[in-house]
């Protein structure tokens, strides 16, 4: 059969190179659309040939790379990565559509970076070799770094450097953890390998408990910063806010932190020397993030910054659910990543549009936009409702699964999270009321509603939010399969 995974990883990168060569906006966007759509088709094909009843990696590809270090080109997808790949494959064509009519300097680079990010992120999701994993992991930084620093807002340079170095430090610490695991396994088996499943399997045989915990914490740190979780979130508001709209959406697509949590951390968790400590760490970070992000969002004046902090709050559910260690909570956390991706894309798109048409993002300077922009208003209301966890929309499925599941093991942490739900509703509604409803603020001048492409892209995502809210099974089934397998490990260890 054809190497479909290599294709969905490489095609975006190739098309990115092509896009770089183009001269005009028209060519660039055409190539970008072509590339993303091809990936979408391949992914859909893969999705329908994916067996969601088994937890193993599928569509595997294995090519030796650097034997002397045990490095292989090893790809595969399972129920954890498949939905996230799907998410990227779905959103990015729509993102290209969304930016279809924008005018910006050097569009060829712009679309090249979009494609490059897609390739890198999908690469992270498919890599089954730590070396490859880390390569793609770092690769995601570069296009985003450029994205922010070329098309970003007033403080773009500071934000870009901060984001770049902060997350780079995190990934270096993660690299240390990988090294530790690598050599621990090497010493035990005598053969070097960076194969992720093998190393995870070897983890439990490490004698020294200290070493185990050190390795685990190093990896955990790398992922937590990427998620990001309180208190390692301070790169996020700047980066998300300064980034151009497309950049923010790409940031949202960057679900690699949580992915690492599920794919690498959880299978190791029961074998660490002090699993309960690890669970406590993750749970408290998660629940605090939820509450903290909500309060911060409530105190923001800038719409986009508010959305950024709400993202911190939402990603808290991922950490909490992962720590919940009940199949429902774990799969709910995975689903939260998926739905959060959809919801936040629209949130940031809306922020971008509002900034474009009104020239400001300060919530109090807006007002009554709903009268002038009915289409945007409808989509925004729907998305905000989804974001504050309204049942029938994807956000609710995730949150309720996480909360209900986690309560079994972590009741007190869930109670903290529950407080945040009211706050979450508060800032969403406050923003809606100030920005969209009420008397139209004449100072904003004449504004026009969103154009056809924007309506199309946002509309499709909105419909998906609704669809997965009513019928999550298409992605939740495979998540459940994997999370049950993870949880069964816990049961074995009696954690």
């Amino acid at each position, binding site marked *: 059969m054809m190497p479909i995974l290599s294709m969905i990883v490489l095609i975006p990168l190739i098309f990115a190179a092509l896009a770089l060569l183009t001269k005009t906006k028209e060519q660039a966007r055409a190539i970008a659309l072509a590339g993303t759509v091809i990936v979408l088709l391949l992914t859909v094909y893969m999705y329908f040939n994916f067996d969601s009843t088994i937890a193993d990696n599928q569509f595997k590809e294995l090519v030796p790379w650097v034997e002397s270090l045990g490095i292989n080109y090893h790809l595969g997808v399972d129920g954890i990565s498949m939905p996230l790949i799907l998410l990227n494959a779905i959103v990015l064509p729509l993102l290209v559509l969304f930016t279809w009519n924008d005018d910006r300097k050097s569009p060829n680079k712009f679309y090249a970076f979009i494609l490059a990010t897609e390739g890198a992120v999908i690469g992270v999701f498919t890599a089954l070799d730590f070396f490859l994993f880390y*390569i793609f992991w*770092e*690769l995601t930084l*570069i296009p985003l770094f450029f994205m922010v620093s070329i098309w970003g807002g007033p403080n773009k340079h500071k934000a870009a450097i901060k984001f770049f170095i902060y997350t780079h430090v995190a990934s270096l610490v993660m690299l240390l953890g990988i090294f*530790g695991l690598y050599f621990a396994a090497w010493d035990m088996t005598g053969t070097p390998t960076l194969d992720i499943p093998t190393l995870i399997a070897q983890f439990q045989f490490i004698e020294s408990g200290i070493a185990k915990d050190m390795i685990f914490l190093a990896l955990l740190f790398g992922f937590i910063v990427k998620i990001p979780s309180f208190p390692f979130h301070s790169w996020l508001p700047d980066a998300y806010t300064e980034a151009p709209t497309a950049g923010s959406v790409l940031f949202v697509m960057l679900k690699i932190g949580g992915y690492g949590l599920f794919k690498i951390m959880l299978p190791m968790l029961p074998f660490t020397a002090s699993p309960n400590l690890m669970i406590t760490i993750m749970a408290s970070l998660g629940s605090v993030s939820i509450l903290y992000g909500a309060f911060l969002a409530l105190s923001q004046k800038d719409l986009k910054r508010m959305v950024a902090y709400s993202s911190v709050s939402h990603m808290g559910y991922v950490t909490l659910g992962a720590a919940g260690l009940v199949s429902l909570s774990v799969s709910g956390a995975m689903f939260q990543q998926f739905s959060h991706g959809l919801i936040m894309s629209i949130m940031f798109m809306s922020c971008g549009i509002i900034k474009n048409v009104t020239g400001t993002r300060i919530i109090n300077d807006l007002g009554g936009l709903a009268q002038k922009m009915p289409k945007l208003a409808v989509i925004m209301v729907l998305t905000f409702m989804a974001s504050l966890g309204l049942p029938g929309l994807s956000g609710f499925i995730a949150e309720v699964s996480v909360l209900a599941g986690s309560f079994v093991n972590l009741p007190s942490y869930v109670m903290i999270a529950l407080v945040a739900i009211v706050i979450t509703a508060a800032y969403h509604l406050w923003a809606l009321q100030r920005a969209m409803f009420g008397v139209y603020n004449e100072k904003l001048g004449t504004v026009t509603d969103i154009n056809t492409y924007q309506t199309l892209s946002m509309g499709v995502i909105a419909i998906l939010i609704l669809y997965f809210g009513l019928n999550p099974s298409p992605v939740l089934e495979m998540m459940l399969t994997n999370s049950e397998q993870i949880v069964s490990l816990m049961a074995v260890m009696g954690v």
Partner: protein
Amino acid sequence: MDLMLLAPEIVIALTGLAVLLIGLFLPTGSKKILGYLASLGVLVALGLTISSLGTEALVFYDTVSIDALSQFFKIVFLVVALLFTISGIKYTEGNSNTEEFFALGLFATIGMMFVASANDLMVLFVAFELASLATYALAGFEKNNAKSLEAAMKYFIIGSLSAALMLLGISYVYGATGTTSIPEVAANAGILASSPMGIVAVVLLIAGFGFKIALVPFHMWAPDTYQGSPSVVSALLAAGSKKMGIVAALKVFVVALIALQAEWQTAFAILAVITMTYGNVVALNQTSVKRMLAYSSLAQAGYITMAFVVLTPLALGGGIFYALSHGFMKAGAFIATAAVTYMVLSENKESPDPDHIDNFRGLGKRMPVTALCMTIFVFALAGIPLTAGYMSKFVLFSSTIQAGFAWLAVIAILNSAISLGYYAKIVKYMYFLPTDSEKVAEPYPYTVAMVVAAVGVLAIGFWSEPFIYWAMEAAKVLVGGM
């Protein structure tokens, strides 16, 4: 004995002489040919070396050994020399002393190559000095440029000082062991270890080599010299003679003085940490790109020195491998700077400091190829994946963890995080800061050299298996002595 074993050295030597003689009779206008000649010679030598990979032999009464280690480093030096000569073609354009430039460069190369294959302290010292002398002159090649001369002067004085220190050190080694042949020294080093001279000798030798490797505090000359001397020469210094110091240190310490391992291991541990930290931190707010690169190469030297601390085969292999990648990256970066300097000067002869980072504004538009290559080099130096820099960091740092020097690895990792600060700064200037000046034609010899280097960086980064293999082979030669 079989002279063919020394074919590369001989070729280089002959080329050097030929260039020197032919140059005398050529009018300044047509001296371009010399550059091509030199490059050709280096290319041939490179070919010969690669073709003879794997041969092992001792020549000249066992004072010169040809083994994986020497071969590997010869290749490094020849590659650097190649980049040097190619970019030299453009640099020496219209210069009446072209022949000296290339001749000196080639002689320096011979020196380095012999250091790489030295099996006797005497040969090592002589070759070391040969390379040094040639590079002293090269550093001051721009006779009418005060900076160039100052650079040469400082380089020379500190250089000769360290030569003296090294010689003194060697004399003690000789005194204690009664021989200068490296294997025999290794055999008798026990005597040295027992005598008080031991530590002194070790420290003196460290100082001697540390000067070339530019380890803090023996580095003081390096920033000034790299900044002052012509960029092409800086490339040779940073990429070439630095590695010479490393290979010399490897031979002397890891092979000859393994008996005093405890002493020099601690010394190198201290130096490595200080060096990498100092280099990175000070590099952060430099305005001269060449000076920034100088400090960054300090830091890189610090990383490589970790190999002396860890001392596992993997670590030594990693250090050697790192030397190779660093050769490509640093040489490329300096040549890119040279291209920019050339561009600036061709616009304005009197420009005070052509290597100021402001001249990199909007380079992405003005000199796309140069900017792209420079980006590759700095990202490689920062250790971004799929580049040689990442590969070598991967091997070296991981070996550090393996040997249980976690603290060292952490320091190194944090350092490479800091280093992102100034590397990203260069990229920022090249791509994000606006410029009013327009696109310029890129001098193609520079471009060729840069592209070669960039290709090398990416090739090593992506298809690293054979390189790592040879590095490991080279390391085996060393640990044979252990």
